């Protein structure tokens, strides 16, 4: 294809290649950008992944459905709850069971909390990518509140393995609702501070506006989803397209910005935090009573193939289960959002400066274990 630079043999060319990664502060993990520079300008980028490939899909073939859940936590570790939910929904669909409304509400609350926590961490790291070091501490400070809510109920902070096929591992802690309400009021006060510190800042706006423009067509063609895709005007919110769990019961807006630049992707995430707070507010007081865990004899998906799409904090997560009817899947495929989001980077960052490459890769919000699986 005419635009692909991947097949150029680089060895016999005098190119100024800089390896960003596998250990580099801006790649947030073990990812390598083979970056060809011309002065400060980036000519092209070849992403190399696989440094943290663990073969999760292969491992899943040997584990039962409840067991393999703990592996999904470790893909996109910032959306652990949502990954769990995806697998659980897929298995439940396969078995033809439906969980109680209480479970649905709690799952959605957890998912939205996860989304906020993920966006907070992204905001922190994005600020740091751009050189505003203080954002990192403010973001993590507020994320701590969410992690405390998680820890109180699930016992762990980052990778919870809390949502399982058939329901939840345990009921929520009595303090759960009170703490979430406290968090909502707390975070509503802190979010404008985020805007004052970074969003409005002239240096920040200059650094992000018009940088890394991704058109809607490009986003669809490359399969860029989540906030990155919505920043290009691509309506790809699975919560709206194919509502699951408690999303049919709540009112929320899909955040769309048509500009497609780094600033738009930034704004989508900032607005999504507000929107998630609204969703939480609608749900938290209305958790119905119900069964926490369905009494299932055995968790076995009947023979067949099942696909479940959910919206994680980074985009569309697809879980594809091929079952032979046994307790473990014959083939498990995770269509992870970061995998698709990564490869757009050569397209949108070529021709910009090195500093812009950092900003763009930060705005795509990549989580490397999710790419490699």
């Amino acid at each position, binding site marked *: 294809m005419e635009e692909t630079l991947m097949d150029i043999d680089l060895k016999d060319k005098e190119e100024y290649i800089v390896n960003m990664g596998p250990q580099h502060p801006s790649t947030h993990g073990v990812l390598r950008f083979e970056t060809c520079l011309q002065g400060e300008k980036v000519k092209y980028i070849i992403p190399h992944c696989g440094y943290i490939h663990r073969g999760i899909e292969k491992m899943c073939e040997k584990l039962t459905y409840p067991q393999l859940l703990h592996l999904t936590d470790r893909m996109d570790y910032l959306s652990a709850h949502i990954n769990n939910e995806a697998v659980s929904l897929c298995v439940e669909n396969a078995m033809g069971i439906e969980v109680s409304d209480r479970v649905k509400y709690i799952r959605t609350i957890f998912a939205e909390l996860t989304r906020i926590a993920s966006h907070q961490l992204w905001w922190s790291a994005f600020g740091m990518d751009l050189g505003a070091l203080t954002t990192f501490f403010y973001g993590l400070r507020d994320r701590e509140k969410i992690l405390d809510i998680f820890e109180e109920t699930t*016992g762990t902070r980052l990778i919870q393995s809390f949502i399982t096929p058939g329901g939840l591992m345990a009921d929520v802690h009595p303090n759960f609702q009170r703490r979430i309400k406290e968090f909502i009021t707390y975070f509503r006060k802190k979010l404008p501070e985020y805007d004052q510190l970074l969003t409005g800042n002239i240096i920040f706006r200059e650094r992000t506006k018009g940088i890394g423009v991704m058109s809607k067509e490009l986003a669809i063609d490359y399969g860029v989803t989540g906030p990155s895709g919505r920043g290009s005007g691509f309506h790809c919110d699975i919560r709206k397209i194919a509502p699951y769990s408690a999303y049919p019961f709540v009112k929320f807006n899909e955040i769309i910005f048509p500009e497609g630049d780094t600033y738009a992707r930034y704004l989508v995430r900032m607005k999504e935090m507000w929107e998630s707070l609204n969703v939480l507010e609608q749900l938290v007081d209305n958790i119905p009573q119900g069964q926490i865990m369905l009494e299932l004899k055995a968790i076995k998906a009947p023979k067949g193939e099942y696909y479940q799409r959910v919206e994680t904090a980074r985009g569309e997560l697809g879980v594809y289960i091929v079952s032979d009817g046994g307790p473990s899947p014959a083939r498990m495929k995770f269509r992870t959002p970061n995998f698709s989001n990564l490869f757009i980077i050569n397209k949108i960052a070529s021709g910009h400066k090195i500093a812009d490459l950092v900003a763009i890769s930060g705005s795509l919000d990549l989580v490397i274990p999710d790419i490699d699986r």
Partner: protein
Amino acid sequence: MALLKTIKEVGNYFNEIYDGVASLVRGMKVTGGYFIKRGQIVTQKYPENRATLKMFDNFKGELQLIHDENNQHSCNVCNTCARKCPNGSIEVIYKKVEGADGRSKKILDKYIYHLETCSFCGLCVPACDEHALRFDQEFEHAVFDKSKLTKVLNKPGSTCKVVKE
């Protein structure tokens, strides 16, 4: 007209500068505010606050075989926890002894827990019908020797509360 345009452009130039400086000052107000305000520090002095540091009740520390005051646990060697474990972190080693009625029965010899492979998924605890397991509050897992992470959970000399027939 041209003059007007020039004036407008010059005005824009200074407006831009003003906006930029104002946005910078807004940001500095946030950080400066935290610098001045008292009681904003969120970090803790960790080893000093060990005495007051309390984990949440549900906290998943290390796996623990519950022993009561008589040094009795309730593991009946059904091996469910070991089968549920996705990582093979639990090994239940039993020995056969002659019961009072002359029938041989299994009793727990060693309950081995590999902390180094445990992923804290929490499948083992609800799996136990005898409620013999729980997660304790221990969070200081670090050791200098990897072999220390393999733990024997039943205390020496402990006996089983319920004896499987």
